[in-house]
């Protein structure tokens, strides 16, 4: 019963945190660019405004995938707060990502189509990093359960800092920040118009926004796992990573998809693999 309450609270609170973070993101980005910036609550205004817009659509299937995107993202979050299997969480996150891609594909619109293909490239880029993160956690803890991380008194960051760096790269993709904001862009002018989101409008756009908030909280939650005892340090680290992303966003131009895949696979392979092998051999020696 306790667990059910935790899950419900997490599902209810997460969008507020996510929206607030998105607001901070916009405000801080504006300040970094020498602008005054929108109010912190701006993402919520946007969200409610979108809810009030009239529905227009090009396709019904698109909505089904968008709902799937949201539901699976919430499931991932529930998995995180209930301290379930990390590997399965990553696979579920994969389903969420694929749903979003399919939402983009399910209309015959060129920019949506380009965006979906690029989103696929993004999945191809960050998926190995997340999976290797799970494997690295297993290498360290001997279990894929998030609960084992929480119980472990030594923070993961000490032995898994290369994986942490790789995960920050994945976070850049997940937060859709420069240099990897190739599939849809939150602001600025892009060759893809709005990528996957091009044909998504009104209340369904609000749905995507909501999902992105959940996603943000989820990914930051994953980063917080790196210092789970005490958790507040982990949360601080996650916030630090969040701010780091904003800085990265503002000092880089957007790269192309091909470069992104190459950088991510190199990062995943070099950083994560070396880290895992190191732990593996250290255990072998001991």
């Amino acid at each position, binding site marked *: 019963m306790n667990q059910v309450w935790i899950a419900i609270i997490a599902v209810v609170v997460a969008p507020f945190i996510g929206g607030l973070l998105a607001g901070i993101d916009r405000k801080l980005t504006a300040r970094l660019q020498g602008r005054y910036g929108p109010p912190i609550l701006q993402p919520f205004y946007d969200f409610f405004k979108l809810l009030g817009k009239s529905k227009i659509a090009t396709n019904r299937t698109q909505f089904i995938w968008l709902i799937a995107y949201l539901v699976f993202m919430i499931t991932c979050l529930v998995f995180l707060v209930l301290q379930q299997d990390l590997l399965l969480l990553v696979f579920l996150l994969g389903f969420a990502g694929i749903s979003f891609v399919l939402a983009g594909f399910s209309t015959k619109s060129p920019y949506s189509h380009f965006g979906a293909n690029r989103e696929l490239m993004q999945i191809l880029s960050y998926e190995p990093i997340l999976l290797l993160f799970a494997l690295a956690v297993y290498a360290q803890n001997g279990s894929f359960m998030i609960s084992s991380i929480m119980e472990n008194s030594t923070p993961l960051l000490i032995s898994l800092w290369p994986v942490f760096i790789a995960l920050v790269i994945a976070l850049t993709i997940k937060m859709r920040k420069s240099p990897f904001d190739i599939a849809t862009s939150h602001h600025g002018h892009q060759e893809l118009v709005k990528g996957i989101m091009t044909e998504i409008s009104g209340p369904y756009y609000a749905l995507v926004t909501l999902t992105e908030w959940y996603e943000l909280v989820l990914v930051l939650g994953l980063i917080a796992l790196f210092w789970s005892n005490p958790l507040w340090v982990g949360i601080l680290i996650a916030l630090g990573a969040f701010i780091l992303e904003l800085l990265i966003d503002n000092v880089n131009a957007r790269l192309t998809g091909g470069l992104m895949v190459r950088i991510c*696979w190199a990062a995943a392979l070099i950083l994560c693999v070396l880290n895992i092998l190191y732990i593996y051999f250290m255990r072998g020696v001991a």
Partner: protein
Amino acid sequence: MDIQGMLAVAILLPVVAAVLVFLIRQYQLRGLIVIVTAVALIVNSIYFLKLDLPMNFTPDNPIWGTIITVLDYAILLFYIYAGLSLKNWLVLIFALTQIIPLAWWEFGVGASHALEEIKPAFLIDNLAVLMVLVISIIGSLICVYAIRYMYDHEEHKKLEKSRQSRFLFWLVLFLGAMNGLVLADNLMWLYFFWEVTTLCCFQLIAHDLTKEAINNGARALWMNSIGGTAMVAAMIYLYNANGGNIEYLSLSNIIASGGVEAFLLLPVALMCFTGMIKAAQMPFQNWLLGAMVAPTPVSALLHSSTMVKAGVYLVIRLAPAFNPVLGMIVAVCGAFTFFAASVLAISQTTGKRVLAYSTIANLGLIIACAGLRTELAIAAAMLLIIFHAISKGLLFMCAGTIEHQIWSREIEDMEGLAEKAPLTTFITITGMLSMFLPPFGMLLGKWMALEAVYAVPLAAILFVLASAATMVFWAKWLGRLLQVTPKLGKKIESLSLSYSVPLWSLFVGIFVFGIGIAPLYDRFIKFAVDNVIPIQHAFTEGWQIILPDAATALSLEKGVGLLGSYPVLPLFIVFAIAIVLPLLFVKLKPQELRPIYLCGEHAGDVDTDEWYAEADNVSKLELGGYYFESAASEESLNAWVYVIAIALLVIMFSIALGVSL
């Protein structure tokens, strides 16, 4: 029914039915025979569960041994004939490398007499029954599907002379051979059934008699003949190195040795190699890709759900006889195939080739699991065999149905199928989702494999990269099907019963097995795992899959309780909320429709995909898929793939040789 009768139904009934089908040229009657056989096989296979497993059986009459020997040589002689008539020297060479040593061994050395004494002929344990179930149920459904498929196929080709009887003959015959193969314990018999499946495979691939079909059939033939040669070599070695003793010419005895007998490692490696060729592992993937020219039921039956499974079946069977190093190298081989095939699948433009690569990849995953040889890994392998057979059988049938609706296999031509054939598309999409996403069984298997794979870090990394690539090629294809212009009021197409019964059966199967996997595992699959490796842990808890931490290869000091958990029911509930409910309840009003965004220049109403281009000409929107030719094409990657795969095989054999000699 006693065991003898059941075996007869499983193996001989298809043979008899095949002959009948060949003789009867009347469409309805022929179909009826196939359906009756299918029902008999399914019922019979379920009866196997009631047996007191494991049990042995050897036919009393020695005539069976003689018949098999005679047919063996007949098949090999046919290969020689085929090689000569097709002027395909590879076929000829590898037929000769089988027949000459075999004849020399049986008659030159004079082992033929001793060989008749090998007992038992059949070993019926849970693993074998599991395979029989897969073959009989899914195989039979595909045979039913083939009745109508071949009719349409020939209608479309406008053949003067119907060759459906011949086709169904080989298809039904194959079921018997396959059942024999998985049940056989006597290596000689195993070898015979093995050759029959190869023969069926050749005949079916070459069925259309086009040049390409014959060439690809021949390729399948000679590649599998290499496997046959390896098996012959293994048998001769087992006989000779053991001083003319037939003890190790029985699978159960090899396995029972548990990898301790050093000299056994080479024949085990050889047979493993045979299995890997049958499972089209890199570098032998080409025969399976070529096999895609065959009519789709062939691909569904032979090249995804059953025959190629014989290869992985053999590897799993032999897993206990590996030593740890061989196990590791087999795991890496499998993992490499998984990775390379997944990446190559991204650049494929033909639907069936994607399915073929996906099959190769998944077989690689299963073989890798067999190589890992932990309880968890073997359990994963079993689950993967079952779920892969269901999902891939379904997908191939879907591919066939789609082909008969649009008369093309190209993924590009499947654009907007969701509108032209919503029902087929719906089933296809479900099948595809079940291949790579939670909560379905394939993912459960992959998840277990990943949790088990840590013992071999190299394989783990390949798994991870392959998983990412898998998502990409499936999603691309899915996207293609879904890509439609805005329109309301689709009309649902009607499928003939011969199509829809197998399709819906497997469709339901995905969900039934997916949801009920925990009880199923507990009641049945667990014992099949036990046939390979002794089970020590319960992986289930009610409807859930729970992995205790001791189930890993890596023993850690810390007792953290759980390795992982997979809440099956909650995930299916999530799936229902995420997909099924919206599918039922999300509606769209016509007035909410708007044309797609074409930079403000769309021409026409809401369902338009045209726009005004230069000089006010109306131009049609075309959307081609991405195939990443520059990065993932066969041309650019094949050289690497072959080098690495061959290197891995060389390492495998050097290890086996080093240990054995």
